[in-house]
């Protein structure tokens, strides 16, 4: 039981996808200018990443591994994730126009978030079981969402700051991300305590 807690905790804080594993940075930099959009992207990613982790586990475990097809992992994972994205869009469009309005524009962008492929691949590398894969996917995406939201909060505040001209915009955002990543290093070791 507690090992599952550590899987999630580790994925959210200690090995945060963005700050420690350095994945998913393009959307992290791209859609963090406003809190609102950050939230939308976060929700969408959480959904796809969790589902993608589970599905990828199933594909790897039942289709690829038994047939010695591990070289098809990258391809099949990404294609399946793309399909999940499309299907999600389709389903929410039909069932919840409201949700679609919130998430609609972010869903297509998710396919090129390398965290959605990276996390399933890490699941394989860390030989997680199905539940662990799901939890790891969920934890990672929560970590991503959290990072995105906090970052957006700071960026909104930075809007009025008198930042030196060459650093305005993305440069200072990058520095800020660095400082956040520095802060997250403080969590090192928290997932290992027994």
């Amino acid at each position: 039981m507690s090992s599952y807690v550590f899987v999630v905790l580790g994925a959210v804080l200690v090995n945060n996808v963005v700050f420690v594993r350095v994945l998913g940075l393009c959307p992290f930099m791209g859609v963090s200018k406003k809190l609102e959009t950050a939230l939308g992207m976060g929700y969408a990613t959480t959904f796809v990443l969790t589902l993608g982790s589970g599905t990828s586990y199933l594909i790897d475990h039942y289709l690829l591994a038994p047939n010695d097809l591990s070289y098809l992992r990258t391809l099949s994972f990404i294609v399946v994730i793309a399909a999940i994205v499309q299907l999600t869009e389709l389903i929410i469009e039909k069932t919840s126009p409201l949700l679609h309005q919130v998430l609609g524009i972010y869903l297509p962008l998710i396919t090129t978030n390398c965290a959605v492929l990276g996390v399933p691949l890490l699941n394989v590398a860390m030989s997680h079981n199905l539940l662990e894969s799901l939890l790891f996917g969920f934890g990672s995406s929560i970590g991503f969402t959290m990072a995105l939201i906090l970052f957006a909060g700071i960026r909104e505040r930075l809007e009025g700051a008198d930042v030196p001209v060459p650093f305005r915009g993305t440069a200072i955002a990058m520095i800020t991300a660095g400082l956040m990543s520095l802060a997250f290093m403080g969590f090192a070791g928290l997932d290992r305590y027994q």
Partner: protein
Amino acid sequence: MDRQITREILFNGLWKQNPGLVQLLGLCPILAISTNVINAVSLGLATILVMILANLGVAALRNFIPYEVRIPVFILIIASLVTVVDLAFNAWLHGLYLVLGIFIPLIVTNCIVLARVEAFAAKNDVVHSTLDGLAQGAGLLAVLAVLGAMREILGSGTLFSGIDLLIDGAEPLSLFGAHYPGFLLAILPPGAFFALGLLIALRNWLEGRAAARRHARGTLAPAAEAGAA
């Protein structure tokens, strides 16, 4: 092939629309793998290879790809190319393969690859597309190399460590002697962010200065856009 367009495509990839400094795409490998020059350059070369081939492939096949499945097909093409590169590294550069880890398969989701395929190769002919892949990949490679060098020099005071993975027995350069304490932070993720932030600022500064100079001379920047735009 038109010289002017060629130059523009190259200029775009390397400077004006540099993926790492301007478009902010493909950041994950840039930040994760730039802990030393060798890693950075190796991944950069792998990415260039994939980008060239992907742009070439898509540009060649674009007329056969229906609109509604274009993204999955692009991904299919890219993923296959990446798998081939991955297998090649595994077989012939195994040491590097272990170091680069999941970042070779992650070239698939490297936003810049798909972005170029969609924005350029899907709309342009084979020659220009290939060139664009090369230019954008080179832009990425340049950033990777500079970043890798910055971090390696600061962080451990060496250059080309890990070269033995490529060339057996080759020795890395040690720059500050054995007593250099090493600014460890540079090699860790925060250092990656800082270094890229500084690079972006440096580019902004250069651009700003150039703009100021143009302004002083009273000429406007040649408003040339890339063929894609």
